[in-house]
C-alpha cells in the first residue's frame, strides 16, 4: 500500500485535548501509525479505521465516484463496487442483498428503522416497546413517532431485559414494534434475542434489533424484522450505517423521496465509504472467532483483576454472557471526569457514563436503569487487534489514579 501513503497532516494539535504533558506526534498516514493506536481502549465509541478499509477507501474513491444509477462505463464500475459491498455486508448479516440499505450513520439507520416500522404499522397502533437500556438513538426515535408512545421494559442488575415485563407490555396490544439491542453498548450484557423475537412474533409485532455494538464481535443476530448497525464501530469509516429490512416486513419509508437504496434512504450514496466499510467488515469477520476469544480473555482478566487491585469497585454487566471486548466498572468516591483526564495523561483513552462527563450532567440512563453505581464509572472497550501489553499497562496505572482521585476528595478509608 506504499503509493497510498502520500497524506501527511501537518496539524499537530489534538481537538480532544488529550496529552497536555507532551506534544502529540504529528498525524500521519496508516503506514507509520500503529494499528490499533497504543492505549486506545474506547472502541465502543468508535474504532480506529481498519487498515483494510483505508486501502479500499482510496481505491473506491478513484474508481467508484460516478452515479451508480447511470448507464455508462464509470457508472457501471461504481455500481459494481456498491453491489460487492452490499453482498459482503449481507453475507455477514445473514441477509439478502436486497434487504440491505446503506445509510449516512448508525443513528440514521435507527431513526429510519423505527419510523418506517411505525409508519407501516400505524393501523395497528403506535406503541413502541423497548428496553430501558437501549441506545439513546432508539429511545429518541421512538419518542419522535407521531402519536407514538414509548414503553420501556426494565432490566436486571446486569442490564438484561426483564422478559416477563417485556411480554406483559407486548401483550397489552397496540404495539407497532419492539426494539431490543443485541448487546448493551455500555455494560456489554447480551440481550436474550431468541426469547424477545419469539414473544414479538407470537404477537405479530416486528422486532428492530440494534446490533451496532455486536457486529464484527459476535455472530450476527438471526431473528429480526429490521436490523441496524454502524460501520465505524467495526473499523469502517464514519458516515456509513446499515438498515436491513427483512423481505415481507411492513416497513414504509418515512422520507419524502425514495429512489436510492431500495427506496429506503434518501440521497446519493457514499460509495467509497461503503466499500471501505465492507472491506473492514470482511477483514474483522475473517478473524472474528479467534479475535473475540482473545479479547474476551483480556476482558475477563480486567474483570477479575480490577476488584483485586482497586478497593470499592463494582464491575458491571454479565460476567459471562457479554460482548467479548467491553467491560464497565464504577469506583466509589471519585468522579469519572478526573479519572478520564488522568488516564489520558497516562496514555489511555476510555469513556465514562458518570454524570460529570455527560452533556446534561445526568448519569447514563443505562446505569440508572440497572441501579448501578454511576460515580467513577469507566468503560473499557478493546479495538480489534488490541495488545495484551496495553491492557496490562492500564491495570498497572489504574490503582494509583483512583487512589489519587480519592485522596483529592479526602475520601480515603471511607
Amino acid at each position, binding site marked *: 500500500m506504499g503509493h497510498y501513503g502520500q497524506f501527511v497532516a501537518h496539524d499537530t494539535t489534538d481537538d480532544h485535548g488529550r496529552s497536555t504533558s507532551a506534544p502529540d506526534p504529528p498525524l500521519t498516514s496508516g503506514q507509520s501509525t500503529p494499528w490499533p493506536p497504543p492505549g486506545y481502549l474506547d472502541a465502543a465509541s468508535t474504532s480506529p479505521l481498519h487498515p483494510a478499509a483505508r486501502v479500499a477507501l482510496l481505491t473506491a474513491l478513484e474508481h467508484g465516484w460516478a452515479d451508480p444509477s447511470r448507464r455508462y462505463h464509470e457508472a457501471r464500475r461504481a455500481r459494481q463496487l456498491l453491489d460487492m459491498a452490499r453482498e459482503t455486508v449481507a453475507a455477514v448479516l445473514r441477509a439478502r442483498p436486497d434487504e440491505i440499505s446503506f445509510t449516512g450513520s448508525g443513528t440514521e439507520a435507527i431513526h429510519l428503522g423505527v419510523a418506517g416500522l411505525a409508519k407501516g404499522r400505524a393501523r395497528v397502533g403506535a406503541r413502541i416497546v423497548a428496553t*430501558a437500556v437501549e441506545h439513546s438513538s432508539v429511545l429518541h426515535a421512538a419518542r419522535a413517532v407521531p402519536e407514538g408512545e414509548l414503553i420501556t421494559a426494565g432490566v436486571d442488575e446486569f442490564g438484561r431485559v426483564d422478559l416477563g415485563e417485556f411480554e406483559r407490555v407486548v401483550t397489552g396490544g397496540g404495539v407497532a414494534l419492539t426494539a431490543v439491542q443485541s448487546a448493551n453498548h455500555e455494560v456489554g450484557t447480551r440481550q436474550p434475542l431468541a426469547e424477545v423475537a419469539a414473544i414479538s412474533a407470537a404477537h405479530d409485532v416486528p422486532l428492530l434489533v440494534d446490533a451496532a455494538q455486536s457486529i464484527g464481535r459476535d455472530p450476527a443476530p438471526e431473528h429480526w424484522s429490521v436490523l441496524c448497525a454502524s460501520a465505524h464501530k467495526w473499523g469502517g469509516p464514519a458516515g456509513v450505517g446499515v438498515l436491513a429490512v427483512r423481505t415481507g416486513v411492513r416497513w414504509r419509508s418515512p422520507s419524502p423521496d425514495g429512489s436510492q437504496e431500495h427506496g429506503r434512504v434518501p440521497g446519493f450514496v457514499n460509495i467509497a465509504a461503503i466499500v471501505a466499510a465492507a472491506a473492514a467488515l470482511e477483514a474483522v469477520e475473517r478473524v472474528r472467532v479467534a479475535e473475540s476469544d482473545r479479547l474476551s480473555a483480556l476482558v475477563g482478566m480486567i474483570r477479575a483483576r480490577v476488584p483485586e487491585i482497586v478497593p470499592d469497585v463494582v464491575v458491571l454487566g454479565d460476567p459471562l454472557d457479554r460482548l467479548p471486548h467491553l467491560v464497565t466498572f464504577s469506583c466509589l468516591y471519585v*468522579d469519572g471526569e478526573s479519572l478520564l483526564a488522568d488516564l489520558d495523561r497516562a496514555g489511555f483513552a476510555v469513556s465514562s457514563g*458518570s454524570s*460529570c462527563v455527560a452533556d446534561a450532567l445526568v*448519569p447514563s440512563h443505562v446505569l440508572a436503569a440497572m*441501579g448501578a*453505581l454511576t*460515580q467513577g464509572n469507566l468503560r473499557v472497550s478493546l479495538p480489534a487487534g488490541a495488545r495484551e501489553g496495553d491492557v496490562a499497562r492500564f491495570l498497572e496505572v489504574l490503582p494509583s489514579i483512583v487512589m489519587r482521585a480519592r485522596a483529592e476528595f479526602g*475520601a480515603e478509608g471511607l
Partner: protein
Amino acid sequence: MSTSDPVPDHYPVPDHDLVLDERGRRCPMPIIALARAVSGEAPPARVLLLADDPAAETDVPAWCSMRGRTLAWTGAAADGRGRAYLVVAGGN
C-alpha cells in the same frame, strides 16, 4: 425498573438524627459526605441527606447496598429543592 422494591415517596419526612444538606454539590461529593457522616466512632443511625444532583438518585441506593445500609425513605425535599434520602444503619 431496578431490582429492588420502590421506596415509598410520601410525607411526612420520617424521624432522623442528622441532616446533611448537599444541595448544589455534584457527584461524588454528596456520597462522600454521607460516607463521612457515618464513619465516626458513634455514627448517627438515621441520616437525612438532601441532594439535587441527579446522580444521587442512583448512587445513594447503590452506596447503601455496598455499605450494608438501607435507603429507608426518599421523597421531594420539603422546600421543593432536590430530594431527601433517609439512610439508616443495617442492610435490607
